[in-house]
């Protein structure tokens, strides 16, 4: 089973501050642990929302709102994708993230653990078939993991 561990933003990440040496070392060690355990599939960090934008859709119209956005705890700052046997195992890995080294003192940090949909989650049916048809029309390399 695959899970995404979604790291929420904090003041530091939103300010675009690069992590300290100590934070980098702690995260590096953690990532290495994930890799050595054979569970790490992918990871990335995101730049602060001041570098991004939101596109809102309403009534058939798209409106663009430039960042930054204020509600730091609702913002995503990065993610890991891991492959494990159970939700419990994913949570155990999430508990080991060395946040004490990476978040500003006294500030709470949050990570959200979410399972991916798996093939088994979809019973065959017309909607699934039509989704597959749509997927067929996409270029072969479309998707978040181009190349």
């Amino acid at each position, binding site marked *: 089973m695959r899970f995404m561990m979604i790291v929420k933003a904090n003041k530091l990440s939103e300010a675009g501050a690069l992590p300290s040496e100590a934070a980098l070392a702690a995260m590096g060690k953690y990532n290495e642990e994930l890799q050595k355990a054979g569970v790490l599939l992918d990871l990335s960090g995101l730049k602060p929302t001041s570098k991004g934008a939101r596109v809102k859709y309403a009534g058939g119209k798209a409106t663009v709102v430039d960042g930054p956005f204020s509600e730091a705890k609702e913002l995503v700052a990065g993610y890991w994708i891991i492959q494990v*046997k159970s939700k419990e195992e994913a949570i*155990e890995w999430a508990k080991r993230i060395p946040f004490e080294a990476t978040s500003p003192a006294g500030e709470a940090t949050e990570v959200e653990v979410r399972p991916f949909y798996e093939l088994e989650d979809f019973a*065959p049916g017309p909607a699934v078939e039509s989704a597959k048809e749509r997927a067929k029309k996409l*270029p072969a*390399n479309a998707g978040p*993991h181009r190349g």
Partner: protein
Amino acid sequence: MTATAEETRRRIEALWRMESPKLYAGLTRLVRDLGLAEELAQDALVAALERWPESGVPENPGAWLMTTAKHRAIDELRRDKLLVGKHEELARDVASGQEERSADLEARIERDLDEENLGDDLLRLIFTACHPVLSPEARVAMTLRLLGGLTTAEIARAFLVPEPTIAQRIVRAKKTLGEAQVPFEVPRGGERAARLASVLEVIYLIFNEGYAATAGDDWMRPELCEDALRLGRVLAELTPDEPEAQGLVALMEIQASRERARRGPTGEPILLLEQDRSRWDQLLIRRGLAALDRAEALGGARGPYALQAALAACHARARTAADTDWARIAGLYGALGEVAPSPIVELNRAIALAMLFGPEAGLKLVDALKDDPALASYHLLPSVRGDFLTKLGRFDEARAELERAAALTQNARERALLLARAAACGEAASPSGT
């Protein structure tokens, strides 16, 4: 918020999967006896199952389990000493040696298990579990249990055999390792290559059992593929200089990337060239290609796993089936045939050449393999022959071959597919209404 007993049990299960390989590895190094190490680790698990639902799960569960197991080891040792004392006459010959060994052992147990040593211990454990003195089935069971963190019941379910069979297999394997006095070490020198090949073979066996289930009604058992991938990734991390470990990971990642595309809505198999490539997992392909790059950078481009990974990569890189670089594929099969000669490789080379030069060319090569005893009961030979004959419009012969292939395969899904193709040939040979 208090966890229910069931929640705690599930947590312990997850923690056990994560921590047990380290426990087995560290403890085996300490007590030099895999069987005893396993008992100690199991004792620690039992203690956790007893206490944690009451006390809550400790802050560092891995360290708790290890400490508990170490205390058991010391208890065991003291009891041993006592036994030696009680049977003094009997034990006189060995007593001094035993005393020395025990003191040494106790000192080592008291010392904290060094993180630095953990990797080496795990590698020793992999080599021990995959030791050639064990049968392939035993190696698979030992590897899944000791390194994959699977329970006996889970292994039994994955291989569709009764649980006592697996339990027996593991007991016998430990006995065999003890009797053969297999040292707990990473083989060096000339022995290393052969022993590593055995490890790689075991991991790929597990993967293949998941990828193309040899028996049963399911075409795939993806959980076994994931177990094998995890083991392969662990091994590749532990042996970063071994190109074939990287090659095997590359091969498994790329093959696993097709999982979603190789089954139809009712679970029927879909052949590679007919798969919807938009369903291939680009994340796994990217990981596989990176591992293949590492294998090649280490000078291992001609290793059997790296060559097979390169073949899988050819398909992964082709945007459509028509874009497939069949010349490169035929060349890679030629190279593979040189380092690991096999009629199955030759059969695949025939398929590639048929794609390049037409079914007639392929048929010629396949006919040369027809009498190879190694392929006598291999369903893919008549299956491939049947395919070439279909393309040549020789439907009656094609049908006979496909039916023969259907009779040879052990997999129910594959049999159904072959029979459907045979029936289609039958209809083509005598169109309905005549």
